[in-house]
């Protein structure tokens, strides 16, 4: 498949969106769903072909002297102003990370499309309303996300950044009849939109100094030739920091909003109000890593701005710990998985931030390891977290509840789901040979290279990950015998929902053996990776400790967890209430912003601004009333106005010209 056909990978979901959204609304639900799945299947095959061509093919300039090159396969000028001084382009850029993202997005999206055939067919026994709308929105999301990763310039990326935000909004609020879904979709949109405002400011600052939006023009083909405009702008300072540092920090805030970094994470747990397959696709595997992707895309600039990198590093490390701490106590399984997602994305962010781009060897490892590890973890995490969410969906579909107190002991009833979930847990906990082990190991190695403190901190979080994941697992599938509510005992779901679980579980088993260092690196050079035995051993050990602790506490029903909860009551409640972040936001927005800032602005708007427009309106209205006689309806009058107008025009002009 020639790389120039990458554009069709985007085109198929886009036209599917138009078709499903406009035409198919009247069609039978089954057919709509099948069309959606088939369309996505074609997209997936195509994306795989593109990625295969890019990584293993030769020709079309994707490989030059053993270095992978960025290939721009489509390049349209969308807007151009002021004799091409301000040009906005739309294009398709294929490089290691975008090719990898094509695989991630299309795989997970296809699995979710297939899975939704079963999951969305009924809602607590009733046929689902808006089935067609659901598939149309999924297609829109897939298109937007694919467009985001292949963006050739930062402006295009911003457009697609907003579009994934919109489609996420639509899908979180899919059950728009339910109040919590409404609130959650609004919350997600407002929080990410606020972050995107910073992103936009960052774009404006950056492009003001570099005079271009284009990634290739700013960073050079492989990130090694950052343009002079950028490096010279580094010398300019604003409030003690370089302007480029400000720009990159603002851009990071945009990414932090989408990637749910502390303190902008508050929307993600609530976003679980959407249908569970949506959570798997958008809020676990693809959209939430948009921020990581953004930083990775502009990595060559970030390494030149160590200040911005330090901010990312601190935010990432803290978020990883914070989210893991919250995940340990949540009783809603989707919320627990959501916090786990936040924690894992923070792992990726931290890994990017500890990475350096120097070409010399550091501690026996080539630099850029953190970057590679981050992308690796993004890839494996997308697979096993989608798996976990889809398992959660299957369970919720079976027992009609999100609370783990309604589950317990499901292992006997849903063996396939249980095993798939276990594989997901082993992968995320970092047990070899599952996928998460390899990627997390690389991240930890990169962290230890940055400093022993960072390494220890992240190792501790990795241990907590193992603990809370197995806590969830045991509470769902073991703990005590399942009490059957209602008439039907829960069972494994139909094949449309089980097949994706099996496929993703298989991927989670083998994805760790992908030689990522040879495929995805920040500058296209190949990177030799070795298993760092001390780090690997330590991380497996700490994961085993976490699992062991979870086994002791949650394998069988026992009073130990309750005892611990009462012993550390304050801590437990704080963790359960997510350390009161939502309450803090409530306080800040309602008490400080609404009272202190919004009220005066509202007064100004209502009296001054509205007053001006009322004046304008009144003047207009009375003028309009005054001249209405002109339109008398008789032709003599019309002709009189005509001739008076023509003569006056001539007379005044003549007078002005002749006498002045």
């Amino acid at each position, binding site marked *: 498949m020639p790389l120039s056909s990458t554009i069709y990978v985007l085109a198929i979901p886009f036209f599917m969106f138009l078709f499903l959204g406009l035409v198919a609304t009247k069609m039978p639900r089954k057919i709509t769903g099948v069309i959606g799945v088939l369309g996505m299947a074609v997209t997936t095959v195509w994306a795989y072909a593109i990625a295969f061509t890019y990584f293993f093919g030769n020709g079309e300039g994707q490989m030059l002297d053993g270095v992978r090159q960025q290939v721009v396969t489509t390049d349209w*000028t969308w807007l151009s102003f002021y004799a091409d001084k301000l040009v906005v382009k739309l294009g398709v850029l294929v490089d290691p990370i975008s090719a990898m993202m094509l695989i991630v997005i299309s795989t997970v999206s296809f699995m979710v499309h297939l899975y939704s055939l079963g999951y969305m067919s009924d809602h607590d026994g009733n046929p689902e309303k808006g089935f067609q709308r659901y598939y149309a929105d999924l297609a829109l999301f897939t298109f937007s996300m694919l467009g985001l990763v292949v963006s050739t310039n930062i402006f295009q990326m911003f457009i697609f950044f907003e579009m994934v935000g919109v489609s996420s909004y639509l899908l979180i609020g899919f059950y728009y009849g339910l109040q919590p879904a409404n609130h959650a979709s609004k919350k997600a949109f407002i929080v990410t939109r606020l972050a995107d405002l910073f992103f936009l400011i960052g774009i404006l600052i950056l492009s003001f100094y570099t005079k271009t939006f284009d990634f290739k023009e700013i960073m050079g083909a492989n990130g090694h030739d950052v343009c002079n405009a950028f490096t010279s702008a580094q010398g300019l300072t604003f409030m003690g920091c370089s302007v480029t540092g400000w720009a990159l920090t603002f851009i990071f805030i945009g990414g932090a909003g989408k990637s749910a970094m502390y303190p902008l994470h508050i929307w993600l747990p609530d976003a679980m109000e959407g249908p569970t397959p949506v959570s798997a696709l958008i809020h676990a595997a693809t959209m939430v890593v948009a921020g990581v992707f953004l930083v990775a895309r502009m990595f060559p600039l970030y390494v030149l701005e160590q200040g911005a990198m330090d901010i990312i590093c601190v935010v990432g490390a803290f978020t990883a710990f914070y989210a893991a701490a919250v995940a340990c106590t949540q009783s809603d399984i989707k919320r627990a998985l959501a916090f786990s997602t936040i924690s894992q994305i923070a792992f990726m962010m931290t890994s990017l931030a500890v990475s350096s781009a120097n070409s010399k060897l550091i501690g026996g490892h080539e630099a850029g390891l953190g970057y590679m590890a981050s992308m690796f973890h993004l890839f494996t995490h997308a697979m096993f977290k989608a798996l976990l969410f889809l398992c959660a969906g299957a369970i919720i579909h079976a027992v009609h509840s999100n609370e783990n107190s309604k589950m317990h002991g499901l292992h006997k009833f849903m063996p396939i789901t249980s095993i798939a979930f276990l594989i997901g847990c082993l992968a995320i906990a970092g047990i070899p040979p599952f996928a998460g082990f390899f990627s997390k190991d690389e991240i930890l190695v990169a962290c230890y290279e940055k400093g022993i403190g960072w390494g220890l901190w992240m190792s501790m979080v990795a241990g907590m990950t193992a603990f809370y994941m197995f806590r969830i697992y045991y509470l769902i599938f073991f703990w005590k015998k399942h009490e059957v509510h209602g008439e039907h005992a829960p069972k494994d779901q139909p094949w449309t929902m089980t097949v994706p679980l099996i496929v993703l579980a298989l991927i989670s088993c083998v994805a760790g053996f992908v030689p990522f260092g040879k495929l995805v690196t920040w500058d296209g050079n190949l990177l030799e990776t070795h298993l760092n035995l001390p780090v690997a051993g330590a991380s497996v050990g700490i994961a085993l400790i976490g699992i062991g602790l979870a086994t002791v506490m949650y394998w069988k029903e026992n009073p130990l967890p309750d005892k611990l909860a009462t012993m550390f009551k304050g801590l437990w409640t704080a963790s359960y209430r997510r350390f009161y972040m939502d309450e803090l936001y409530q306080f800040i927005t309602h008490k400080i912003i609404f009272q202190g800032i919004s009220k005066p602005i509202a007064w100004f708007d209502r009296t001054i601004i509205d007053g001006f427009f009322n004046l304008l309106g009144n003047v*207009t*209205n009375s003028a*309009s*009333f005054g001249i*209405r006689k002109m339109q008398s309806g008789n*032709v003599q009058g*019309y002709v009189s106005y005509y001739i008076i107008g023509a003569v006056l025009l001539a007379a005044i002009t003549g007078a002005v010209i002749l006498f002045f």
Partner: protein
Amino acid sequence: MDYSQFLMMPQEIGLLVVFLLVFLYDTFMPTKTLKGLPLFATVVFGIFTIFSFLPVPDGMVFGEMFESNKATWAMKNILNIGMFIVLLQSIKWANSDFVSIRRGEFYELIILTLFGMYLMISGRHFLLFVIGLETASLPLATLVAFEKKYYESHEAAAKYVLTAVFSSAIMLLGLSFVYGLTGTLYFTDIATMIVGDKSLLLIVALAFLISGVGYKLSLVPFHLWTADVYQGAPTMVTSYLSVISKGSAAFAFFVILVQVFGAAYAPVWEWMLYAIIVITITVGNLFAIRQRNLKRFLAFSSISQAGYIMLGVISANAVGMASMMYYILVYIFSNLAAFGVIAVIERKTGKVTTDDYNGLFKTNPWLAFVMMLAMFSLGGIPPFAGFFSKFFIFLGAAKTGSVAIYVLVLIALINTIISLYYYLLVVKAMFIRQDDCVIPALKSHWTERAGLWICTLGIILIGLVSCIYTSLSDITSSLTSMFSMI
């Protein structure tokens, strides 16, 4: 005579072929098959529209009276698109009971008026221009009177004929002054003759000429016929009058002002146009606010829109010309969408006032949606095409760099805000207001729906597909000889 000169006017020849085909069908086909005439005419015209996108040679023919270049080609194509939508939307109406007996005339006359507009666009001699103008005007009077049964239709036609004749007379008087002073009617010759000659007579001539074309464009104070005629005429004819006829006149106006009076008289006519634009936009808005009849309301809105189109003329540069043509293209889609909806509802229920549209969204969501798009586009709300057309036309005017023009753009901007009031009033009626006697759910004919679909796509896409404006801009900036005079 060198007959190969006809090769320079393929679009005119093609249009005449369309006319002849329709005429032959109407004359010789058995009466039973005449029901198919509207569809036949539309299809033939559609084919012609596609073929007329074939490139035409550049050059002047027939004693340099007729010019063909990329800009005239593009302008004719723009008009063709609008004409096609009008024909498509009028199929059902033309086959309705009391019009069907004359449907042949409708199609023949309307195509002939388009031919006249072609001559206005391409004419480089005042004689040809005036012939084109009259060819475009007189059949329209017949079309305005087309619904013989209605008193309003007669009245409108009478007013139209009387005022049109008057304005033609005034304009011809002005042209006779020009001829008297220069002894020629060729655009380029006049331009070279009047350099440095600032006689009062020529200023009067210029004022009369502006009033004559201003009449076609319905610029204030030459606009007073507009509301009555738009209201009385059949809706299809009104939509034709409001976009196609206006578009051709605007283009011809630009050519005349820049090419004939560009060199020596640019400050003079720019001043005149300045005053006209200010009062046109403002007065159009002020009247539009008070209208409750939608056709009348769109008449005043179109007066105001003509003022915006004139902003492209006053900038008198390549950007202004491109943005003017772009504006006309967008305006065609937006206005035809609005008139299309009005026509459907009028044909089915006879209702045409804003209050009748209360609660329309509940019963006819698609019609309400298209109408909303049209109103948003006319009001210039992003991301619809109307926003981009306004943006480019302001950009073109601001490019001249003079402070006076900046003030003009500011006035136009304020008027945009005022215009939003009445455009959104229609949207409010459809979506927010409730009524007991809502228009029932309608099933429009597929041709009408097709027309509305084209308009909807145009409104949504033209702004976003940037190559349309870019190619227009490339075309106009290649017309070096035209702008060399300024």
